């Protein structure tokens, strides 16, 4: 029992650390990708190739003066970024980061907890995330912040429906809500057991989920809550120092978690082609699988950035049009078609 607790504590620490590390380096990657896509070089002064840039940025955030506006609601003002950060970090708990490791005859699962309602938990936590933005924007007592917060909550509510409906089709297919079981169903992909990744069976569902994930993460083309051209800084206009840092950081953590969820649900998670045919040891398969999962996640993080530097922002009515009039009906049709195939 004690060893179990220690193992889980270590795992939580490792996942926490990796999440923060990847989020920190996503900020660096964002600037680099932006630069490369625009024929520039990007940050290259802090360390070789600017590799220490996240440290410099973090230090800058901590050293900056912390301003809490007089007219703001001080408790909620501090609570906002805390909730944003907390919920962003919580979603990583149910994601299976790898298969199982066997050490001295004991099996260790590389998933912090295998909830049987895993995907529902992710949805629940992600929808709490909007409270951070909403509370922060509201407590600022600034019209730009409030507008940003209202936009954020309206957008989240609209796109969560389409996201949930797109997942229902997938759940109808797999018959389970547990993320580990969904991953196990995609084992092998190519090789002796022909289990294709879910994206092959659910291309429309994947597309809807991807678009909604962009909206949930407030990423371009859905970054209306913080669009600089209209709302100064959006919900974080009044924030400074590390509280602003937390908001920006939470966005990158959300991006990482969404990439992980997309990889797990639609791209086989830690499975890789021919994994059971090369006669490898279980531990080696697990390690390669985990690396494979992180490669998939890295690709999706890159994809998020790639889209950001390609597509301009939606207008607000276009955003609502897309969410309510296109994605939701499409998701419902997708459910019907999946149901038909299930019967046949």
């Amino acid at each position, binding site marked *: 029992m004690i060893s179990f607790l220690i193992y889980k504590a270590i795992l939580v620490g490792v996942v926490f650390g990796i999440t923060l590390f990847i989020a920190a380096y996503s900020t660096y990657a964002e600037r680099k990708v932006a630069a490369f896509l*625009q024929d520039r070089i990007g940050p290259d002064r802090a360390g070789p190739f600017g590799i220490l840039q996240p440290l410099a940025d973090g230090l800058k955030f901590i050293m900056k003066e912390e301003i809490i506006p007089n007219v703001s609601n001080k408790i909620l003002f501090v609570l906002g970024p805390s909730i944003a950060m907390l919920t962003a970090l919580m979603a990583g708990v149910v994601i299976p980061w790898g298969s199982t490791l066997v050490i001295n005859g004991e099996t260790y699962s590389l998933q912090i907890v295998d909830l049987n309602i895993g995907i529902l938990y992710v949805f629940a936590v992600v929808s709490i995330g909007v409270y951070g933005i909403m509370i922060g924007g509201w407590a600022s007592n600034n019209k730009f912040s409030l507008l940003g917060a209202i936009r954020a909550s309206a957008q989240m509510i609209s796109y969560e429906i389409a996201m949930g409906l797109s997942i229902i089709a997938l759940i109808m297919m797999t018959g389970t809500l547990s993320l580990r079981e969904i991953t196990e169903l995609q084992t092998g992909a190519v090789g002796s057991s022909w289990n294709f990744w879910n994206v092959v069976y659910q291309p429309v569902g994947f597309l809807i989920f991807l678009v909604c994930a962009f909206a949930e993460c407030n990423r371009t083309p859905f970054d209306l809550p913080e669009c600089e051209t209209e709302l100064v800084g959006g919900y974080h206009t009044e924030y400074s120092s590390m509280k602003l840092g937390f908001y920006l950081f939470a966005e990158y953590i959300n991006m990482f978690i969404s990439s992980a969820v997309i990889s797990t649900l639609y791209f086989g998670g830690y499975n890789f082609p021919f994994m059971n045919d090369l006669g490898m040891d279980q531990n080696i398969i697990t390690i390669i699988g985990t690396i494979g999962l992180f490669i998939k996640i890295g690709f999706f993080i890159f994809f998020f950035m790639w889209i950001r530097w*390609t597509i301009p922002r939606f207008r607000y009515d276009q955003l609502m049009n897309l969410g309510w009039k296109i994605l939701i009906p499409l998701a419902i049709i997708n459910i019907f078609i999946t149901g038909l195939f299930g019967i046949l």
Partner: protein
Amino acid sequence: MLTNRSKLVVKKEMTFWEKIYLPAIFSGIGITIKHLFKKSATVRYPEQTREVSEIWRGQHVLKRDEKGAERCTACGLCAVACPAEAITMVAAERKKGEEKLYREEKYASTYEINMLRCIFCGLCEEACPKEAIFLTDRLVSTDYGRDGFIYGKDKLVESVDNRIDVSKRQTPAVLQFKKIKLFSHNK
């Protein structure tokens, strides 16, 4: 219609493929990914400098003659020619014993160019009858205040030991051009 480049704007209904946006998005991300592999246009300035033309018009120099005496006689033609009104000067008479410092009886006791006003057009150089002022390929360096950009004689006059080469700008063709009486500055 003058340029024949005006386009007739047609507001037509979008087709189904245009309406779902996806093909446009895919072609868009195709364009951006191409740029990922393109050479960046950046010049890393302090380490690398951009190549400039041989007759680049940069920071001015006030030339001395072969003996090291200042060529400028404070005639003021450069100040008159200057479209940005960046040049000011105060003339003074040469005293006895200063023959080695100044070439002619009159010289500029102060000569200032405001580098923030200057547009580096080179008209001062064209107007100068004494071949005294030239633009060089040096860049005007940055400063924190506006005062630092008013360059006096200390920064403009070349030092005797460290002459600044202006042969690229002072070609025989240029000298010939300056002697043509047709142009107003030589009348």
